């Protein structure tokens, strides 16, 4: 187990270097960040040249990347072109994103698995068909449509929720955006759970559990669900990584100042340090989330052992 974890951590190094370099090169290829700083107006050539010199943009790409990586290992993710350290920006953005993640993830787990179990146990009946149709609709509609519609209905028309999230992002104002963010994954979780429940309910060990005279509830929770959730948890784990990477669309709709919001701003302004800094952190978070899922897998299924 320990060796497995170490090996996985070591594998992260090349992935980490590769992804950061690709991002670095891609942002670089987007165009001249100095020009972007000035918006529509053309900058004074002398000022522009000076800025380029200051920001180290005249060095070859590989040198710029090397300098940047040097910074990362001393805990310095660089400074945005507007003068703010990227770490500061992350510190303001991350708590909000984490809160949103917790809300969305809770929706996914409770509603997604709940619907999946109901529909898997009642295959072919009305409840099942209802869940299948609903989830299909949710999956096929883009998030920004769901987001704007729910924002209008709940936030504006009926006034049941905050239409936009105020400064500080209190939990209750994140309920609606959290649901919007969770909606598609929730639908997938419900469908995945339904399939595995339906499959496993025919399994021999479920028959054994029934033959043992266990109450139906115990057969479902202790025997059926415990086995059926293994693939669902894999999906949830990867999704957790994605959620922590911020939600560009949802955060824009509800004006949430999380990771997605700042990342979007960074991309818009071609702010290389912001984008690369954020993505670097996201890559690490995602890799760790994946590792966590793989380890969890072994906990859930004793037949899997890592050496």
């Amino acid at each position, binding site marked *: 187990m320990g060796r497995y974890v170490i090996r996985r951590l070591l594998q992260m190094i090349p992935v980490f270097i590769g992804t950061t370099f690709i991002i670095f090169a891609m942002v670089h290829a987007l165009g001249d960040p100095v020009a972007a700083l000035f918006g529509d107006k053309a900058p004074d050539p002398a000022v522009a040249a000076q800025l380029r010199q200051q920001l180290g943009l005249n060095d070859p790409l590989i040198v710029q990347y090397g300098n940047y990586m040097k910074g990362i290992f001393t805990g310095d993710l660089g400074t945005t072109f507007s003068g703010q350290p990227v770490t500061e920006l992350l510190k303001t953005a991350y708590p909000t994103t984490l809160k949103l993640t917790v809300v969305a993830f809770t929706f996914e787990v409770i509603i997604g698995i709940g619907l999946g179990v109901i529909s898997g146990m009642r295959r072919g009946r009305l409840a099942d068909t209802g869940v299948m149709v609903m989830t299909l609709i949710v999956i096929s509609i883009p998030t920004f449509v769901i987001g704007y519609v729910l924002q209008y209905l709940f936030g504006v028309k009926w006034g049941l929720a905050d239409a936009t999230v105020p400064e500080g992002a209190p939990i209750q104002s994140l309920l609606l955006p959290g649901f919007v963010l969770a909606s598609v994954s929730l639908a997938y979780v419900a469908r995945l759970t339904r399939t595995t429940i339906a499959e496993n309910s025919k399994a021999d060990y479920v028959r054994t559990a029934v*033959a043992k*005279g*266990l109450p139906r509830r115990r057969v479902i929770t202790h025997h059926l669900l*415990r086995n059926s959730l293994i693939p669902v948890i894999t999906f949830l784990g990867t999704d957790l990584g994605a959620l922590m990477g911020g939600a560009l669309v949802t955060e824009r709709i509800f004006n949430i100042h999380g990771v997605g919001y700042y990342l979007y701003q960074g991309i818009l302004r071609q702010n290389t340090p912001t984008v690369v800094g954020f993505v670097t952190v996201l890559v690490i978070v995602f890799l760790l989330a994946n590792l966590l899922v793989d380890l969890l897998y072994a906990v859930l299924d004793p037949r899997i052992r890592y050496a």
Partner: protein
Amino acid sequence: MGIHATEVTADAGRGRTADSEDAPLLQVKNLQVEFRTRDGVAKAVNGVNYSVRAGETLAILGESGSGKSVSSQAVMGILDSPPGFVTGGEIVFKGEDLLKLSSEKRRKIRGTQMAMIFQDALSSLNPVHTVGTQLGEMFRVHRGTSKSEAKKKAVELMERVGIPAAKERVNQYPHQFSGGMRQRIMIAMALALEPDLIIADEPTTALDVTVQAQVMELLADLQAEYNMGLILITHDLGVVADVADKIAVMYAGRIVETAPVHELYKRPAHPYTRGLLDSIPRLDQKGQELYAIKGLPPNLLRIPSGCAFNPRCPMAQEICRTEIPPLHAVTEADGAPIQGRGSACHFWKETIHG
């Protein structure tokens, strides 16, 4: 037909095989089970009668699809429903018709008073729980025992069924056991609450031959120790011979022959049973071609009219295609009754005596 052709009704025949003395532990009467599938109704069990007394072993023999497993699942009340439905008959267990009980009452009987051992212990045990948890679950759910006490009981059970180092192995998972040991755990689980009846559905099919013998021996020993009734479902004539008291042979959802175990081997009274016995390889017939029953088991959606075995039967006559044979009481050639024998063949006399 011969001169002594005295047809006996199925009931009379059964009267001799079953409740002659005290009331049996389990009595299945005219049980009918069907599966309602998309392709039509498959009649899996068509009027099956049998009985088991305490301490007695009944072997139900048949090919796959003969209804032997389905009838026992109906007895346990674990039939997959839908598509399976019990459409008729009675299952009298300790004087009570189980089919009239509420599902909650039946659940409480399962595991405590009747238990089942399944064929493939690897898939029948839950892969994500330790064997100790799964064994202890019986005590925790039915007896409300504490966790630690249940574990102690699990270790005791494992020792009882001959699993070495039970104390350490109680925390292991099913996949960490060998096939024979896993089947022992299944047996231990069925035995946990000392039920009156155990149904073993092909308990040794998934095991290799030496382990088969050990497991059967264990099962027989435990049965004698606790004076349990045992229904042994199998397609293996070899397994049955040593442990069973009586045999019921099933074909296409009906019992076609009943007999005390050694009687059946000595002189079968149904062409199907004879075919089965003839298709066992024997040392004294080395070099000869092995007999096989021609044809395939019938499709349960379209069971042949008359005797279901008629398309495969070497003795089939016109009557076999039109009339379903009742379970005749089988007698000696001079008409003397034979205890517990019945054959659902129009020509049982020719089969056994001629």
